[in-house]
């Protein structure tokens, strides 16, 4: 299965929680950190279940989520 991870831009996140509803593997949770604008931002659990489906990022109104596809390092292109 494809492995992925996301990076949440905490300055842009407004804690609307739309991404949490979209995430099928429940890798995003409501965090406890408050950003400089007073919004309670979401957190990425990073427990290895993210498959880089990008649904969270597509639905994020504030373009606060970056999605990465993670793969093992290849040796000699193999």
């Amino acid at each position: 299965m494809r492995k992925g991870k996301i990076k949440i831009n905490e300055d842009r996140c407004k804690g609307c929680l739309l991404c949490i509803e979209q995430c099928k593997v429940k890798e995003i949770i409501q965090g406890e950190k408050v950003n400089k604008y007073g919004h309670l931002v979401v957190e990425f659990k990073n427990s290895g279940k993210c498959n880089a489906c990008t649904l969270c990022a597509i639905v994020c109104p504030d373009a606060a989520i970056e999605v990465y596809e993670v793969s093992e390092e290849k040796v000699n292109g193999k």
Partner: protein
Amino acid sequence: MIEKIIYKKPDSLTDVNFSYCPGCGHSTVHKIIAEVIDELALRENTIAVAPVGCAVFAYNFWDFDVTEAPHGRTPAVATAIKRVLPDRLVFSYQGDGDLASIGMAEIVHTANRGENITVIFINNTNYGMTGGQLAPTTLLNQKTTTSPFGRDAKNYGYPFKMLEFLSPLEGVKYLERVKVTDAASVVKTKNAIKKGFSYQLQNIGFSMIEVLSSCPANWRKEPLDSNKWIEEEISKVYPVGKIKDIK
């Protein structure tokens, strides 16, 4: 480990944070438009006309040319720009108070003239910036600050369906209603906007995309509940789908 980025903030958005409330549909549509402009590689060739309303600061968020128009007159300004610079992608971005109320004359005549522009119409069933007053698009029985007991047809009339109203006009070439409540509908909205822009680039004529958009602060609802309300109530009055497509 190799990390390959597959989704990021579009280049056509600046680093300025949106001034919209958490979960607001305006933010999503701004982002989608920026993505479409990036994909079409038209950042240097686009002129947007921003409305009066919550989206009045759109020029702070989009990293391409954006100008401002008096309340409701966005289609008139976009008409002028498109006629003087016909090689540019010109689109008007308007809310429902701006387009369906104070700018009614401008949008109807622009559509009837069949101006080769694209209109992005954000329908959140109330005047957002001024505090949630009744708009022509407000649903029956919907409570707003100026209809505290709910909209009744006798005093306030019926919800105005702009796309159905403009549909018979000969100058109108493409009309579609979409929503931004989940990932699938966001992708559909993006495709609709892309189609509207591509019709303009092919000189086909006037196109308008209505986006059912949430206004959590003025609806007094959480963002997730607002999207649910769009699915359950607003979509019934304003059904999503293609209203007109001459192709």
